[in-house]
């Protein structure tokens, strides 16, 4: 019996080497452990054995069965490997370049904008937006800059013809329609549509009738900020701007508020920045943005009681910040869209 079992296992092992496919594996399995398989036949012979023989033979049979099962398991792995190799084809050279295009990139102005907005979000400012084509009232009059105010000379404005009607900025009376010269018009729209207190930051495109050169562009971007609340102070203004500058230019950047003039803030300041990490512009005061406390007249024009509400406002040029942060020397790069420029910010 022992010999018979040993022969059976040896024969199966030999036969197994020829098995290559799943069908052959199934056929082989049937020949050995199927209902009429060779091992099954031996096991059936157990019934004829005596009480004394059974444990001995049983042990031998179990050993043979175990060997066959191991053989089958190994064969299954072999067959599956062959199947997988057939399904997948030749092996991959992992050093080959991927034929697919890599991810694209955000424009440096978008990157800068998002970075700035993220800083102000930390201070509880939320993003507001407004139309690019504006009424003269929203862009100037409501900002305490009536017609023939000399402050209008500070910006040369692009106008739309009299017949132009904007769906987004309908006229209040017969005022001119223009391309907004600053995002400060969003201040007006926000004060008219929301109840204070609020803090908004308004990124957007602005337009001036300027000839294009290394520092001027017919359109450019600003980020405007407005905080309306009770008892907003100059100290708050310094706190907000100081935070922003340290977020954007690092902890060793410092600011100063230099008195200036804007019709819609009183007092008004230019905020200058000085940082040791700005390349050839390091350690010099650089003009970054205009700011101030909201002029009471503006609050009044926008329907807020200046005895109850106060505010601070600021506006910065996105191009200016992006140029400083990335060391870009010509504003026209932003609008030329040469990918050799754009991909540097991927």
């Amino acid at each position, binding site marked *: 019996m022992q010999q018979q079992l040993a022969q059976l296992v040896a024969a199966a092992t030999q036969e197994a080497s020829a098995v290559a496919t799943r069908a052959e594996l199934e056929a082989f399995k049937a020949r050995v452990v199927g209902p009429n398989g060779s091992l099954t036949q031996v096991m059936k012979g157990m019934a004829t054995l005596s009480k004394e023989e059974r444990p001995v033979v049983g042990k031998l049979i179990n050993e043979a069965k175990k060997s066959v099962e191991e053989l089958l398991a190994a064969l299954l792995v072999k067959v599956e490997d062959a199947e997988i190799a057939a399904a997948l084809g030749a092996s991959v050279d992992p050093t080959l370049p991927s034929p697919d295009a890599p991810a694209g990139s955000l424009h440096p102005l978008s990157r800068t904008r998002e970075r700035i907005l993220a800083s102000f979000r930390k201070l509880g400012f939320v993003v507001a937006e407004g139309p690019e084509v504006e009424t003269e009232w929203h862009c100037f009059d409501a900002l305490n800059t009536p017609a023939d*105010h000399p402050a209008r*000379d500070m910006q040369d404005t692009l106008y739309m013809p009299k017949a132009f009607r904007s769906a987004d900025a309908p006229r209040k009376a017969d005022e001119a329609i223009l391309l907004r010269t600053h995002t400060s018009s969003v201040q007006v729209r926000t004060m008219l549509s929301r109840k204070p207190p609020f803090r908004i930051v308004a990124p957007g495109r602005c337009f001036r009738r300027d000839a294009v050169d290394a520092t001027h562009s017919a359109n450019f971007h600003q980020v405007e900020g407005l905080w309306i609340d009770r008892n907003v102070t100059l100290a708050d203004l310094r706190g907000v701007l100081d935070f922003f500058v340290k977020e954007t230019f690092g902890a060793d950047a410092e600011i100063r508020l*230099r008195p200036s003039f804007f019709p819609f803030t009183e007092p008004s300041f230019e905020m200058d920045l000085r940082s040791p990490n700005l390349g050839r512009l390091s350690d010099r005061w650089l003009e970054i943005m205009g700011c101030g406390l909201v002029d009471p007249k503006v609050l009044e024009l926008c329907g807020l009681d200046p005895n109850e509400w106060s505010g601070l406002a600021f506006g910065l040029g996105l191009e200016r910040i992006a140029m400083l942060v990335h060391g870009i020397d010509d504003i026209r790069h932003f609008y030329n869209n040469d990918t050799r420029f754009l991909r540097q910010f991927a």
Partner: protein
Amino acid sequence: MKVSFQALSRHLDLAGVTAERVAEVLPMLGLEVESVTTFGLAPLPLVVVGEIKSFEKHPKADRLSVCQVDVGDGSIRQIVCGAKNFKAGDRVPVALPGTVMPGGFEIKVSKLRDVDSAGMMCSSEELGLGKGEDGLLILTPRQPALGTPLNSLFGAPDTVLEISVTPNRGDCLGIRGVARDLAAALGLTLKPLTVKTAAGLAAAPSAADAVKFVRSSSEFCPYYTLRTLKNVKVGPSPEWLRRDLEAAGLRPINNVVDITNWVLLELGQPLHAFDAKKVSEGIEARPAREGEEIVLLDGKKVKLEPGVCVIADAQRPLVVAGVMGGADSGVTDSTTDVLLEAAWFRPGEIRRVARRIGVSTDSSHRFARDVDPAGVELASRLATDLLVELAGAQVSGPAVAVGKPPRADVTIELSAGYVAAKLGTPVADADVSAAFARLGFTVKASAAGFSVLVPSFRSDVTRPIDLVEEFIRIHGTDKVPAGRPIAPLPGDEDALTSVFTREVSARLVGAGFTECCHYSLRDAAELERTLGADKAALVAMDNPLTAEQTHLRASLVPGLAGALALNLSVHADPRGLFEVGTVFRPQADGTIREFLSVAFAIVAEPVTRSWKSREAFDALRAKRLLQDAAALAGVASVRLSFAAATGGLWQADHAAALVDRGRAAEGACGVLDLRWTRSLGLKSSVIAGEVCFPRTAFAEARKVPRFEAFSSFPPVTKDVAVIVPVGVAVAEVESRVRQGASKAAGKEFALESVNCFDVFTGPGLPEGHRSLAFEIRWRHAARTLTDEETNQALGVVIATLEKGAGWTVRR
């Protein structure tokens, strides 16, 4: 506004204060210093007075002279010179070898066309003294001693600060105004202004005056004064006066005009001088009449808008009030009697008129910024002093004044604690009143706190908040600390346009697209291509600056196509490009609406070679990107339909227009017009897509998705193929399949999806037809569907499809 250090020193004792210090202090007062330059003769120890003893023509150069020059050192030196304006015996500046000229050029002993030359004789310009007469600076009239260093003939060089004065600070358009601010900042005292001409004004001309009347009938001229000065000797101004004007960037003309300009610079009050003999009878400030014209000083003939304030005589307008004088009533060399005007005009009107005429003068610039009414008479008196002193004028009597100063000093009540409340930091009352006192304001204690009297020269300070600004200017902004930390306000969210911009940009960057940024202002040709000529005219600007930027953009696609062409031309291998921004589109109601647009463009065939090729980018991939973008904006794909796009930017038969049933989105995608893109230099076809949303589409807050329970039983899938004529759109057939499949499901079970999985044309199909195959999936919420049910349902679908004219279901 150019202010020289010497000019400031007339008003302030600046001993111990350097020009550099002044340039540091002024910006922190709000007076930005744009440049600091040296004016006058820089220290040039080796430039001395020499005399040209004799000269002869250069043997080899017609334009050069060989001069024998004595510089008083006991020898005669030979110098070659190109100037022509001298004669033998003239004394001129001689730069000896070793001199470094203001331009950086070093003088050496040299040969000029083979003739020895030991130095250089100098022109005014070469010495940095400004453009004088052509040729050498002739010193003969000054009779200087030979060898005298030139510096001892000229004063010390001056420093000129170019200050940018903000529109609210009209008072700083005069040197005294700048000096006043500087005095306040440095704690100095302004020197008193001494004027000899007596104060006092007459209500009407006397017999001694050169006019019979002075009147104002214009609302824009509430206050006008005119003084007669007789026997004026018009001639060149003295050197100090010329120097002062030149330092301020003005050109000396004659003593009378120079004096009016000098006073304008000094006090910021414009003056005008008439030749009395050219004035008929009297002077009236009056509204211009219909049809009146004037030839201005600059030779420009201007048609006067009726109502504009002019200064006229009995016959005609002489001056556009406050803006510019006429060509034929001004002071000339033959003038003997002068009428000196000092007046106050309404600022807004002056600005309006100056812009209308298209001029900006020193005068209009100042009047538009509200000159000090109290300074009108003072300026007239100061100019009179100088006319008497420098032009021998005789004063006939007091100036004649009509009207009265339109505004006076202002008292502002400032409550105690107001300044500190605005600053957000405590300040001492004493500091507040001290700052105001330094600015020339008079401070008194009052019941509320302070009563501050602000002189009329500060038209910009009228309210308590204006005083806060004045205080902080003098007190220093660095003394305000950073404020309290602040917490966010709950419930506030970013505008959804902004959220969408961020999300859609991230999506496209992930899809391999590079973001671009193009100008919003485009040329006419682009808009005509995008919108057609009629609609393009609706987005044209009124006053464009250049011919390339005349219209508002209606699409981002042309910019992107241009950028692809640019990048290919410079071998920058562009892949896909995208942009997010505002476009402007005419609407059916005649308005122009702003849309937030998302667009992309990509060259269909890869621009770089690869060891393994990928499928080309096609119109339907563009469609998928658009659908995804729309979904981010809250416009579900089921709302969108696509139909063949016609004309404009898009290639016929290869592009689709996108329509949203909810009218919150519009757009197009597909192949760009090939003739157009080829004309841009793009060989391969370009696939693009654009979807735009009116801003109102983002008005509502985003919906929070609600969970819907789904079936745990398996679905049943059935296929159906239908042969339809080629012109029938897949969407039409699909919609019919959907209709039948939903009807079949009824209320018992549900249609889950319909998916077009095969489109076939070719053998076995009738000519001009194609076969479309759809997979339909149904599911029951509470049990497994039976074969019978689904076969029946398929039967309903087939029946529905076969109602289509010429449609055959394949069996």
